[in-house]
């Protein structure tokens, strides 16, 4: 039944930028498996002819006027960044071009 491997968890942790040590990895494989198993029950629901629901409320057209609102200062915006250079978020390089 289990489809999640320790490598999968290590990969997810890397993508999510979460440092997990070996003991934590071992524990997370088990815990995530239980969670996935529980969520997998959803797949048993009969959904033929049911439109996918994206929102539980019967609402449409919730908009706001095109009016400026104060946001964050650059210092506030960057306050949680692990690394900052030239008032920009410094991140590991993934691509050479935009």
């Amino acid at each position: 039944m289990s489809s999640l491997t320790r490598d999968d968890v290590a990969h997810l942790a890397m993508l999510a930028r979460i440092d997990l040590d070996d003991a934590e990895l071992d524990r997370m494989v088990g815990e995530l498996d239980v969670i996935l198993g529980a969520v997998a029950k959803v797949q048993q629901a009969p959904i033929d002819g049911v439109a996918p629901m994206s929102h539980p409320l019967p609402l449409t057209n919730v908009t706001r006027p095109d009016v400026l609102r104060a946001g964050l200062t650059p210092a506030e915006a960057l306050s949680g960044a692990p690394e900052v250079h030239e008032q920009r978020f410094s991140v590991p390089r993934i691509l050479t071009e935009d």
Partner: protein
Amino acid sequence: MTTTSTSTDEVMDYDEAIARFDPVMGLEVHVELNTATKMFCGCATAFGAPPNSQVCPVCLGLPGALPVVNATAVESAIRIGLALHCEIAPWCRFARKNYFYPDMPKNFQTSQYDEPISFDGWLDVEVEDGAGGTEIFRVEIERAHMEEDTGKSLHIGGATGRIQGADYSLVDYNRAGIPLIEIVTKPIAGAGERAPEVARAYVSALRDLMRALDVSDVKMEQGSMRCDANVSLRVRAGDGPTSAAQLDVPLGTRTETKNVNSLRSVERAVRYEIARHAAVLAGGGSILQETRHWHEDTGVTTSGREKSDAEDYRYFPEPDLVPVAPSRERVEALRQTLPEPPAERRRRLQTDWGYSDLEMRDVVNAGALELIEQTVALGASAQAARKWWLGEPSRRANGAAQDLVAYAAQLGFAPADVAALEGMVVAGRLNDSMARQVLDGVLDGEGHPVQVADARGLELVQDDAALEAAVEQVIAANPDVADKIRGGKAQAAGALIGQVMKATKGQADAGKARELILAKLQ
């Protein structure tokens, strides 16, 4: 993964490529809307602001932030769809496009996937027919959907970076969340050798349309309009690119060229990819479906990120946003706000102004249409407005590698100045050569036309007595010439007019001098 701007790719001679293959294109154009605020938050959208100064918890994707749709952006999206003759969806949703690049801090871009707000439209574009005229090529539109722009990354390190040895990206999220409309064509077939020209004409027509709608700055050099060009080739069949046999041939593998930032680049990039594909296919190779990067400086494309990894975006409906469901009444009300289509407007103005096809093409290519329209509205004749705008101002704008509108705006040189200049000519204060001097002075920043004419002392001699005295003096000094004119040789008057102009230091009205000379001697 490092890309360089040089390439060792083989290319086939373009004419040979077209003789052997039939090109098919797909164009994806992103238009940044000119709303004051972002798509889902109230942050400003101004270009060129300090990094990360136009951000908030929503566009930074901080936990707990809730996006809300910008009403004006939806309105612009609908107007764009209508102007492209699209159906407007009565109900549509946003979707999350998931990916792990740092240019979106949320790890997804909010876009539309299976339910675009507008779909199934067309845009007619004008291409040259090879006989000095123009003909219409219809480009079918697949969809035009709403999404948000991504942040801007500066890549540091490697071969092209600024800091040797470093290897990271610096991200500015000011652009993240700015409303975008992505306009996607259906496959554009049947253009044959004119495919590059059609691509350029299409992007140009879209730009004109966005300007007319006043929904975007459409500045390609600033990235507020961007084009990705898909190109594929298939073998030639039938008797021409629009023949049924040709259109039945399955499409070849395509490449998608990005970083195409000017109209000229659109044309060049499509042309290059056709020639490159042809060389690969003729050599027995196959085209790799991939993203290519266009290099303006060297005129080539190079391989970019491979599609295989990026293709799986795991789209799913955006749970934080409710559907957009424009009522039919709302759509019809917005249809009433559509401007005159740019091509129709050009035809109307050409008729009103009495321009030849060539004159009109020069005006359009110079980007002078609006300037001339405003100048004519201020009372100048259409021919005079064309003459002045396409003269020195266009020459200087070209020299500065700027478009005419931007050049004039930066200089503070307005249609009112041209109208005032021409007004002085019509009123008889300036002759043509004086008006040119005044124009030079205005463009050199010496002031408005009347100020420049005053300061430089440029004024035709209006004083009839002074002119008459000069004429009499010249006649007295040239009895031989005067005799010839008395004998009926009116063309001899030219020599005397020249001397009158000299005597008045060029400030006389030559026509008036001629009249006076003839009146006295005939």
